[in-house]
């Protein structure tokens, strides 16, 4: 996983609550056996019509959001299916940071494993940036190490993230390699089991 410590990027506002992973990446695209190449299918049925043409009335297709790398979304983002194809699609499309009032548990974990920073902020703050990004464009600066975000008006907002998640993201650590350092403990546990 690619390490991430600081990120500056353009916001794409998606003002819907309870966005489920079926919407993020519909099932017909889950048959691939690779981790890559899912970005083209992100939010597929919202972005494309039945003939596969871009829907001009869906804001993600607007020219001003084309290079967005920060997704600001509604409450309970990523609920539903455990498919990790959802963060793979978001990452492959270009999103490195997701800001929402709350996240579903499995999605939150899956994002962390792929170098996406999920940031939980109160509804009011999310709404404020949502509105600004909808009206014009908004660029945010994220400093993961010091746990704050700065917007263009120099508004500085602190966010919480568990220390161990932060450390893994900043270092891009391989989870399994870390766990294998505890192999003896695992073997000892298995010894007790038998």
């Amino acid at each position, binding site marked *: 996983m690619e390490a991430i410590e600081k990120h500056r990027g353009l916001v794409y506002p998606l003002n*819907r*609550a*309870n966005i*489920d992973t*079926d*919407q993020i990446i*519909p*099932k*017909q695209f*889950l*048959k*691939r*056996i*690779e*981790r890559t190449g899912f970005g083209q299918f992100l939010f597929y*049925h919202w972005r494309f019509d*039945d003939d596969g043409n871009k829907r001009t009335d869906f804001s993600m297709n607007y020219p001003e959001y084309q290079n967005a790398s920060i997704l600001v979304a509604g*409450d*309970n983002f990523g*609920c*539903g*299916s*455990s*498919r*990790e194809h959802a*963060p793979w699609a978001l990452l492959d499309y270009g999103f490195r940071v997701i800001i929402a009032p*709350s996240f*579903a*548990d*499995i999605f939150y*974990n*899956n994002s962390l*494993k*792929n170098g996406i920073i999920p940031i939980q902020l109160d509804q009011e703050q999310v709404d404020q940036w949502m509105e600004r990004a909808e009206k014009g464009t908004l660029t945010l600066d994220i400093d993961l190490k010091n746990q704050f975000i700065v917007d263009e008006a120099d508004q500085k907002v602190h966010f919480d993230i568990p*220390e*161990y998640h932060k450390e893994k993201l900043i270092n891009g650590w*391989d*989870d*399994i390699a870390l*766990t*294998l350092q*505890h*192999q003896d*403990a*695992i073997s000892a*546990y*298995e010894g007790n*089991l038998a």
Partner: protein
Amino acid sequence: MKPETIVNKIWNKHVVHQEEGNPDLLYIDLHLVHEVTSPQAFEGLRLNNRKVRRPDLTYATMDHNVPTKNRDVIKDQIAQKQMETLKQNCLENGITLADMYHPDQGIVHVIGPELGLTQPGKTIVCGDSHTSTHGAFGALAFGIGTSEVEHVLATQSLWQDRPKTLKIQVEGDLGPGVTAKDLILAIIGKFGVKFGTGYVMEYTGKAIRNLSMEERMTVCNMSIEAGARAGLISPDETTVEFLKGRAHVPEGEAFELLAEEWLSLATDEGAVYDKTVVIKAAEVEPQVTWGTNPGMCVPVSGTTPDLSQVEHKEDVERALDYMGLVENQPITSIEIDHVFIGSCTNSRLSDLQKAAAIIEGKRVSDKVRAIVVPGSFSIKMQAEKEGLDEIFKAAGFEWREAGCSMCLAMNNDVVPPGGRCASTSNRNFEGRQGNGSRTHLVSPEMAAIAAVEGHFVDVRQFTGVLN
């Protein structure tokens, strides 16, 4: 000793490593694997030269992609490749696989309990959010992503934060003709789709105690739709009875000892939970979802919401629009054209028996296409032995092979755009059963009677329970 919840008892027994400020490293007793969320995990192992640590604690099946008719002609080349990949991965790593033609094949959350792999006190994971189903046995069972699948394959363990506990106390008795599905839908309808986030839910109370194991699985299955990764029920005699004699459960004295250990896991009197909610079972009516998440749900006697009365007007409007419904519309006025009886929520033998009892001697409405998809090969066999297939077919239902099928429509079993389905599955998300499809979640009994009538009705009117 301090009274403990079952969650903490199981947790404490499984901690491999613990340090201040970090999650606990938790040992995993059973890892269930299916074709869709595993290929990238095995690929990751291969790239890093890693091995599957405990193939003996890993069990695989094919369910999401498999055709439910004409198994031999898989037209979808990519799906075919995914299934072959699972076969190859299991072969290379010495993992038992119930493939499409195997007598133990079925939906992963149906066959685990059926084979007795699922047992009280175990930690169980699977790359699938409905792993919560296994909690019905008093196991700590939760869904994981593919990176975590890879992690469990390599280390047989997972880093996990100790969850908070949420007690859902269901007092009194369910009314006649009201099912476990109605109960869980009513709970989610009342408390919403995220009230369980961060918690493990434990269902308690008289109404829960009186449920069969199959009904308990229906309840625990949908815990994830309330946001909880896991939901469970303390083991009791019903649990022990169900597991006795199953393929992966020991016999004789070893079983007696095990059963005693299982029963000791039940939450102690006076144990403290982080949160408690109470539901009165007698107030629950048969439920129908009207919207695009399982919390958008009302009794069949109800109507779609009144827009002037709702909090998040935009969300409700959007959902009504997608569903092709208007505000204040009576649920019984909603006409359907598809019926799906199946999925890991409601495809077990008793579900099929109950649906068959409703439709026996009746005909599926001419406007409706109805299918029954048993949860496993063995359920299918048993149902055929009892003649249920004949009842369904005589009424005009299609009778299929086991798999996930129209629950997520990854194979050919799809609701067409604009089609409206009464479904016994667990998710009514936009496009879940096919692009543009509209899903109403109901119990098997409610689905069966809707198939006959062509619109929703209170099934209790037909079973003589209501007036």
